């Protein structure tokens, strides 16, 4: 690769540093941009609060107050999931609407370094949702928030954000080809919420849900956060969340490259 003037080739070390810089700046930019979007914040914070409220009332009505922290943590992770899903669904579409998709695809910077920070930023924004859900549970429903393993908790939360953000990257990568694919992402909200055990113990679900749950980072992420907060062994779950995230990154990069080439070949980038 050559530098901006086209004179001198960039070595692998500088190239790697350049990629890290592009990724970091992209992440920072998108987090700031999404923070300014009232629409995005409302959507990613409000719905998880409402679902959490319903779940709180259901568990209270069932006289299981001991389950409320369990539900509260699950609802908090749902907030990250909701934000990621909505954001990753829109990641490509927003660029298409703004007329920047073609420019980004034709830039010499690998497209993966443009889209991955955006999907990761959407899950970072989920922190607002996580905080507001836990706060809502504490203030409105009096759910005590005790963390048994603080260090593990502080690792589990970013690990979950990373895993979910990269899962969103897989979704976003497939959306290059389809104009309305972001609507499909809306459809995935309830199914993933169900099978990953965010609000329902996995042991209660039918057998077919198990293998699907194991392939999804939110399953391990919510387990890591719960075991760190309530007590248990959070580290294997946090490790699994990160490992799955890396697998998603590889899958997403391959898909993105493949679909990008297909869209270029058929001249459908902005028309599909």
């Amino acid at each position: 690769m050559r530098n901006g003037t086209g004179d001198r080739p960039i070595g692998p070390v500088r190239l790697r540093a350049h990629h890290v810089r592009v990724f970091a700046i992209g992440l920072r930019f998108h987090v700031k941009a999404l923070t300014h979007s009232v629409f995005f914040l409302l959507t990613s914070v409000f719905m998880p609060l409402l679902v959490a409220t319903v779940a709180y009332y259901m568990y209270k009505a069932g006289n299981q107050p001991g389950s409320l922290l369990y539900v509260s943590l699950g609802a908090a992770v749902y907030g990250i999931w909701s934000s990621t899903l909505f954001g990753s669904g829109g990641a490509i579409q927003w660029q298409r609407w703004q007329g920047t998709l073609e420019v980004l695809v034709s830039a010499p910077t690998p497209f993966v370094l443009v889209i991955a920070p955006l999907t990761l930023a959407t899950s970072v924004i989920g922190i607002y949702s996580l905080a507001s859900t836990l706060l809502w549970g504490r203030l409105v429903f009096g759910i005590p928030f005790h963390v048994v393993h603080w260090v593990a908790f502080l690792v589990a939360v970013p690990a979950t954000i990373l895993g979910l953000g990269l899962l969103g990257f897989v979704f976003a990568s497939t959306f290059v080809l389809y104009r309305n694919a972001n609507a499909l992402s809306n459809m995935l909200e309830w199914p993933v919420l169900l099978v990953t055990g965010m609000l329902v113990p996995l042991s209660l679900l039918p057998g077919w849900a198990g293998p699907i749950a194991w392939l999804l980072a939110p399953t391990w992420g919510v387990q890591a956060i719960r075991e760190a907060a309530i007590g248990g062994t959070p580290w294997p779950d946090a490790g699994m969340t990160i490992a799955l995230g890396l697998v998603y990154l590889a899958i997403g990069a391959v898909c993105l490259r493949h679909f990008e080439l297909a869209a270029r070949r058929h001249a459908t980038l902005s028309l599909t």
Partner: protein
Amino acid sequence: MSSARLFFVGGLLSYRALFGWLSPWILIPTYVVAPIFQILLFVYIGRSAGVQSDEFYVIGNALQYAAIPCVFAMTNTIAGERDQNTLGAVLATPARRIPLFLGRSLPVIVNGFFVASFAFIVGGALVGISVPTSAVPGIAFVILVTAFACTGLGLTTAAVGLLARDTATLSNIVFGILLVFTGANVALSDLPGWMSTIAQGLPLTHGIEAARRLADGASFASVGGLIAAEALVGLLWGLVGYSTIRVLEWQSRIHATLERA
């Protein structure tokens, strides 16, 4: 005659325009897959919490999902005109306003009816609830009235959509409020008093209650009051929505604010 044509043909064309925005290959699965998983989610939460029967959640969520087509589509059929820059042209026509706006609600009601019915039948079959055959026509009628009531609320959100640009957020908020307040998943007796009081003025509340009683074997006559209340709530929301649209139309002509929101 022209009013009838405007009501039926105009409404149908407006509904078809929704598919210009969203491919049927995406829209239809959204109406089919999402409600089933919403039902399954709350059925399993209910089992985990040890509260209420599966039937309670199947009926509550199937009917509540009528809010998606009824509120979202109704909002988009009117507020979407502004996004397409056609609202000014629509309001500049001398067409009578009642058939113009209400005609758009008819396909939405039918859509909401089919979505909720599908969710009720398939969701019920998946979790294995049994409803007396004699109750089915009554429940179908309740679903239709509930879809009407939700569409009335949708007309109001469409009117608000003329003031605020972000109709998707607005519709999501309305959907969420209906999920919490109407007793779809939490019995009104388990909600705080102020919430169950608000629920009385919302669509779905009385319809869901009527459908549950019918499924439990109550006679159609015994739930007549609930059905009438549901229809009345829908009518009132529809009137609020229609009146607001007319006021905003009038205001927009005076202040030239139609495209500004």
